[in-house]
């Protein structure tokens, strides 16, 4: 066992505090009365107005509906993106086919292009299809994630071919190989990908801001941002909305953190 350094530990604890501290303050501020959010010194203990603020949010943005929208959009996007990524990742990792490399490079190159380049044509497309202000308009563009396909390809490549061939020799069809072997063996990476896509869907802002028009359709980030823009902003409520946006995601992460970090790192460091 090496010598431990209290100083180094203290420094890291400080970094930890800087990162996590604001969330503590956020959670506390969300339980205050609006007038107490801006009291000096800040209130750092629970305020007892949580229910009142929740009710306020329900009246101002329709919290339950907005939460439903957000869960729906993020959930469907996650399911779709995972399916697309697993299928394509498997093809890229384990099959030879014409155009494979070309398409893969094209796909990856869009990672480097700013998303903003695509905003206007996608907006026009959705207008023409009459999909503006619909769930589809928000969900559809998120279904193809180059990062997800890349991640799945990286992960599936390290799966031994013998495993797949053995199943084939035993008479399993290609879909059965995928369903019975590829997916179970790679469940941790798939879970990490799902979490990653869900986070992205839950937090996405620019596109929903553009694509959604009626407050009934808003997702939490859009509703929060519009709430904050009002002249008569109730900051306790806005902060509560921010807390509701941040805290479930953190809880989800805490439960799945091991898988999540290793999955992300697989994408970041392999090759």
């Amino acid at each position, binding site marked *: 066992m*090496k010598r431990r*350094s209290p100083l*180094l*530990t203290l*420094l*890291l604890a400080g*970094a*930890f505090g800087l*990162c*996590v501290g*604001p*969330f503590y*303050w*956020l959670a506390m501020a969300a339980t205050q009365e609006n007038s107490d959010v*801006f009291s*000096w010194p*800040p209130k750092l203990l629970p305020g007892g107005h949580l229910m009142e603020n929740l009710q306020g949010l329900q009246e101002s943005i329709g919290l339950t509906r907005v939460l439903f929208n957000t869960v729906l959009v993020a959930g469907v996007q996650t399911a779709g993106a995972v399916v697309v990524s697993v299928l394509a990742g498997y*093809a890229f990792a384990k*099959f030879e*086919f014409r155009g*494979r490399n070309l398409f893969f490079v*094209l*796909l990856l190159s*869009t990672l*480097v292009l700013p998303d*903003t*380049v*695509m*905003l*206007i*044509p996608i907006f026009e*497309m959705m207008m023409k299809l009459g999909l503006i202000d619909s769930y589809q308009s928000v969900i559809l563009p998120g*279904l*193809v994630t180059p990062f997800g*396909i890349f991640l799945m390809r990286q992960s599936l490549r390290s799966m031994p*071919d013998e495993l797949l061939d053995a199943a084939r*020799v035993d*008479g399993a*069809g*290609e*879909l*059965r190989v995928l369903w019975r072997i590829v997916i179970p063996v790679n469940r941790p990476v798939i879970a990490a990908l799902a979490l990653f896509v869900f986070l992205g869907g*839950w*937090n996405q*802002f*620019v596109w929903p801001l553009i694509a959604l028009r009626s407050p009934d359709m808003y997702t939490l*980030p859009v509703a929060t*941002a519009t709430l904050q823009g009002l002249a008569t902003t109730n*900051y306790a409520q806005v*902060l509560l909305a*921010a*807390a509701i*946006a*941040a805290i479930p*995601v*953190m809880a989800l*992460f805490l439960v799945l953190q091991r898988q999540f*970090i290793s999955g*992300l790192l697989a994408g970041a*460091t392999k090759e």
Partner: protein
Amino acid sequence: MTIAPSEHAPAAAPAGRGTTDQTGRTRPGRRRLLTRTSVPYLLIMPAVLGFVIFKAYPIVASLWISLTTGNGAGRHFTGLDNYQRLLHDPLFWTALENTALILVVQVPLMLGLALLVALGLNSTKVWLRPLWRLGVFIPSLTGLVAAGVMFSVILNRDAGLLNWVLSLFGIDRVNWLGSPFWARVGVVLVITWHYTGYNAVIYLAGLQGIPQELYEAAKVDGAGPIRRFVSITLPQLRPILLLTVVLSTIGTLQLFDEPYVLTGGGPDNSTLTVTMYLYNNGFKYFDFGYASALAYALALIVAVLGLLQVRLMGERK
């Protein structure tokens, strides 16, 4: 998976990859749709469809739109007019300058901090390492809107948390978000808070991939900690450093959410970014042609900077 063939179906026709050990297993007469040659195409079909509709087409269409004026039926080709206009648009230059300024300050600051945090997290001399690692990663999970809203109050001049903490050290209230200079500092602070831990965790993985023998050999040769860092750690981390530099550059050049929520681009356009200006032109004034030209200008800048970084950092692999 109802399409999955039954156990008794014959094996797929041998194809690709030369799996020749299946002779005799393919019976003529019952050819399946799902052979090893057709399967990959079916597998990538959804990705190709999505790619064509939501990536390839918009990229091309955007270029075309950037050469036109007017919307819908009234759109007509005007060649490079939008780009001409862009070159003489003071607000574009302001936005570009703001973005560049934030980029130049924020990316090195954040990545430097991230490297320090990663070195700390990698040290065996530290108690409770997993806890600290978890903590520094958490901000990057937060949506930018939630973080923006949170910090718009934390950075409040009169009663914000940050000014209160500073006051404990006897530092006067700072007009974060209220003055052009401090608004930029505020934006930099928030982005740095948001992404430092994420990069630190990526660096940590890189550090853990460095073979320990290198350090032991260097120690035997009498190299001190700084020497070991410069001669072993940095070169070994080079590919990951490059990755984070390029990704952070791309991210910062597209900065939108934070200033949108924190400052709305103000005060006095001091935090107006290129993407925000693009958004204003496209979705407030519905000038799609000009917004598309801005998008392509941004894409060009991203591409040039990215290539430059790969050139400068990518050599000596």
